[in-house]
């Protein structure tokens, strides 16, 4: 049965209808063919045809697309990924090529490229998403196989560089059935546990199939969603996985990971020593600066005036002391004269002074001073003492 439109199309409306059918009707797709008429325009856009025995299609690869990672030339057998678009003005359709690869890379590579493009468009690999790693991690979480070479290399690397870091291993299968689920769960568990400052995921080298878990969407998304920074250390230097791209930092190998995650203890020790010396120097400078300030103040006018005032006070004190002293001396003088008079009065009472006036003292032989003749008998011997010298006498008569 033949459908006939009753509407008369313009060329433009017809072309637009064709465009709608083609662009909406065909998904983004891979197409395989041989390159011909390859031309790289001065603008940077690439134009070529893809052909096989039966047909050909115009292709364009815009300058803004990631350049093909191989030599694109006539005769090359390629797989191109893109979308068929219609150019209304020329009434022609073409393949808008997003990425291209040589045939023979296999299904894994294609899956890799497809997922990479998808996640890249979501922004999962954006540089702006990358977070800095902690400079001095206290604890490191490792998600890898407990038996592989990677865990040995990682542990050795961490312990030799920075033994203070505590290591937590979440053992997982890194290849084969279920490995991607285990790796993704491992990342999520570390994020829930709050044990570590940074996560390292990885494994040793192997084929693309061996490393495949680290290209699986579940793992790549877990890496991108991690609250803790993630370092991806998968395979050898040349192996780049999607986990590497999503991680905050890619380590070329597990052995290299420690060098990126923890500082070198010897370096920090040196830095601490320098810091200690700087601290001592700063204190010394501070002290000498204060010393200068203090001596500056001592020389200042205000301080000198204060010192002058102290001097004046001292002079007044000295004057006062002098006045007190002379008062004391005067007081002593007065006393000395009184003492002299007193001494004269006392000496007038002394027996010598009495004897001097012509009196004498008579002692009996037992030493008694004779004051009364009644104690004397005739023939008693007396000792007489004069002002100068003495004499012995005998009593002749008592009266």
């Amino acid at each position, binding site marked *: 049965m033949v459908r006939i439109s009753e509407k008369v199309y313009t060329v433009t409306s017809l072309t637009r209808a064709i465009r709608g059918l083609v662009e909406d009707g065909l998904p983004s797709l891979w197409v395989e063919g041989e390159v011909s008429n390859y031309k790289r325009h001065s603008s940077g856009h690439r134009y070529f045809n893809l052909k096989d025995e039966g047909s050909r299609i115009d292709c364009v690869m815009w300058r803004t697309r990631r350049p093909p990672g191989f030599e694109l030339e006539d005769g090359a057998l390629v797989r191109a990924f893109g979308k068929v678009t219609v150019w209304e003005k020329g009434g022609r359709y073409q393949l808008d090529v997003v990425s291209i690869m040589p045939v023979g890379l296999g299904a894994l590579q294609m899956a890799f490229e497809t997922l990479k493009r998808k996640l890249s468009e979501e922004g999962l690999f954006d540089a702006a998403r990358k977070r800095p790693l*902690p*400079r*001095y991690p*206290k604890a490191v979480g490792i998600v890898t196989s*407990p038996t592989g070479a990677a865990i040995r290399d990682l*542990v050795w690397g961490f*312990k030799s560089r920075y*033994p*203070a*870091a*505590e*290591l*937590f*291993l*979440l*053992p997982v299968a890194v290849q084969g059935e279920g490995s991607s689920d285990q790796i993704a*769960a491992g990342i999520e*568990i570390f994020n829930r*546990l709050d*044990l570590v400052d940074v996560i390292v995921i990885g494994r040793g080298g192997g084929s693309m199939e061996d490393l495949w878990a680290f290209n699986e969407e579940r793992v790549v998304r877990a890496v991108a969603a991690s609250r803790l920074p993630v370092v991806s250390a998968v395979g050898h230097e040349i192996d780049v996985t999607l986990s590497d791209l999503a991680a905050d930092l890619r380590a070329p190998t597990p052995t290299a990971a420690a060098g990126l995650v923890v500082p070198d*203890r010897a370096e*920090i*020790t040196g830095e*601490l020593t320098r*810091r*200690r010396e*700087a*601290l*001592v120097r*700063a*204190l010394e*400078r*501070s*002290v000498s*600066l*204060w010393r200068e300030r203090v001596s500056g103040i001592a020389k200042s006018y205000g301080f000198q005036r204060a010192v002058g005032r102290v001097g004046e006070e001292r002079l007044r004190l000295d004057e006062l002391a002098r006045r007190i002293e002379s008062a004391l001396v005067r007081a002593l003088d007065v006393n000395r004269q009184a003492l002299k008079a007193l001494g004269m009065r006392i000496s007038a009472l002394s027996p010598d002074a009495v004897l001097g006036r012509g009196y004498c003292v008579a002692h009996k032989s037992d030493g008694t001073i004779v004051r009364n003749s009644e104690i004397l008998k005739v023939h008693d011997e007396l000792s007489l003492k004069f002002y100068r010298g003495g004499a012995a006498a005998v009593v002749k008569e008592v009266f």
Partner: protein
Amino acid sequence: MVEDKSDTLQPSFEQAYKRLEEIARKLEENTIPLEESFRLFEEGQELLKRCNELLDRAEKRLNIIRVRDDGVQIEETDLD
């Protein structure tokens, strides 16, 4: 977690190191009172000690996390 309690009260290496930088800067500014300089210097010496202690501490274990139905269990294994 194999950390002792006193440890959580003490500054981490990063905190101690940061504070050290601050102290060195303050001391070099020369605008603080002399007594404060001495106090900062002493604090700096303490922090340096703390940093060195943290660096010298060598973890000799690898902690292995075992996932169980009811949560996780941490198993310590000696490295040597």
